[in-house]
């Protein structure tokens, strides 16, 4: 616990600290044979879009392995720091690990360097983790395709990014969805943005949340790997927002009310 007592230099890089303490996620891969038959739980549909006050990030709760439903209460939208969220699609084991590393990375930097990491720095940190994970992704055991949403305090602007599994980042100005259910709803998002009552970025929080829950229900209709809401079990999708005040998750009670009002024709 005290091995770093005499450490004087510090760049604020949490990955450096992890290496000093002997952590190396890649070492388990060195002798791993390729195994195509292996079935690993995977995440499914997450989406995010700009609305009037910031960004809405939403995800279903199901994790599957092949045809088997492994888990129905998976939290695929994860807080990274006070103003950032990551939404995951892909292998949860890798994605949760990445989220944990990223979260510690940003907080460690902020606390040690006494300044918030730049948005560009944050965006590249996730890209670096994905690049380090390429071997795992290529072996079919760790592909992750995340979304990253953050509010840049200096620029006073909310920013949204989509990543491919190799680590390329793409800034999204309107909307994005990823995971196996995303093809079913990307067209709907574009349609809503172009020809809906108002562009997505002009919609209120209520409208944005209602659209999110409807989109996830739609994805679940066509994609068996996306879980539907089950109000009888108090099981709802995860919805969070990012504004200038930071991230905030919608509570179960609020979700119940949003679900009720959204599941009828408006």
């Amino acid at each position, binding site marked *: 616990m*005290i091995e770093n007592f005499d450490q004087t230099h510090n760049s604020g890089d*949490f990955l450096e600290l992890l290496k000093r303490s002997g952590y190396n996620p890649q070492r388990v891969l060195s002798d791993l044979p390729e195994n195509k038959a292996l079935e690993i739980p995977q995440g499914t549909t997450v989406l995010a879009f700009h609305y009037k006050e910031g960004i809405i990030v939403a995800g279903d709760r199901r994790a599957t392995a092949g045809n088997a439903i492994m888990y129905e209460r998976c939290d695929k939208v994860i807080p990274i720091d006070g103003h950032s969220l990551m939404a995951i699609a892909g292998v949860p084991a890798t994605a949760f690990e990445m989220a944990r590393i990223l979260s510690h990375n940003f907080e460690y930097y902020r606390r040690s360097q006494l300044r918030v990491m730049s948005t560009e720095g944050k965006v590249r940190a996730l890209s670096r983790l994905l690049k380090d994970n390429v071997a795992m992704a290529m072996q079919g055991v760790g592909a992750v395709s995340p979304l990253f949403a953050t509010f840049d305090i200096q620029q006073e602007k909310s920013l949204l990014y989509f990543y491919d599994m190799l680590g390329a980042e793409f800034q999204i100005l309107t909307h994005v969805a990823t995971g196996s259910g995303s093809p079913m709803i990307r067209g709907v998002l574009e349609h809503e943005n172009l020809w809906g009552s108002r562009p997505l970025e002009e919609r209120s929080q209520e409208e944005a949340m209602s659209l999110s829950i409807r989109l996830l229900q739609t994805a679940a209709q066509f994609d068996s790997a996306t879980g539907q809401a089950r109000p009888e079990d108090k099981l709802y999708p995860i919805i969070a927002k990012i504004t200038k005040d930071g991230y905030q998750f919608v509570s179960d009670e609020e979700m119940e009310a949003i679900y009720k009002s959204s599941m009828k024709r408006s």
Partner: protein
Amino acid sequence: MFEEPFRWMEAISTRHSYVREKLGKGQPVIGVPHDEGAVIFGFSPQPGKIFEIYDRIALGGLGHPADVERLRMTLLDMAHAEGFNRSAQDVTIGRLLQFGLAPALKQNFEEVQRAPYLIQMLLAEINQEGEAEFFRINYDGYWEKFKKGTVIAGDSKVTDYLQKEIENTDFASFNLDKALQLALSLWEESRKKNKVEDELESVTEDGSEVDEEAENLPVTLAEAFDRWNLEVAVLNSNTGRKCLYRALSENEISVLKSTVAK
């Protein structure tokens, strides 16, 4: 040189005197509870007194800035490695001190060929039950835990006075503003009391000489706000976020100044 026991004890005793003298002018850091968590603050001529260590832990330090920085980084490294490898719930001040910092500080202090750390630290934490806890750790690794708040100061008379006042005040029943204002007024009282005592002592000991540097230090809150930086950090257990630490902004400090420094 140190082969005889009494020589070693003499060396340790000299070290204590040396460190205490060096810390003598260190300005206090006060940590008290309030109805939603804890608040920790300190005035100082230079910024760099109050810091965030982990989600639920704040640090206030006094002493040599390089030593404060080194021990702050040690705490940060320990807390983040532990929080990542286990969980945020396993990162507690008790563990960081008892199994990390305290033995290392003691060892450093007793290795008389090495330069001692010139430092005192106050740590505040919101525990898993949502209660505020305060810890004080000395340059020689000795640490204590307090429920009702605590203080560190270079001058032991100031520490004793403020600690007694803090123990006699039910800060946990006040809201943040009230608790902070009350703690600031205690700081001012201690400055005034200290100044009077210093003047009396200097007259009786050497006739007329008064320590000019001590004479020029701010005594009232108004003077302190004008000449020094006030750093305030709040740990609030009702934010709904995992990080409970928040430093008061410049605007909030200005509002506080207009309220208390009249």
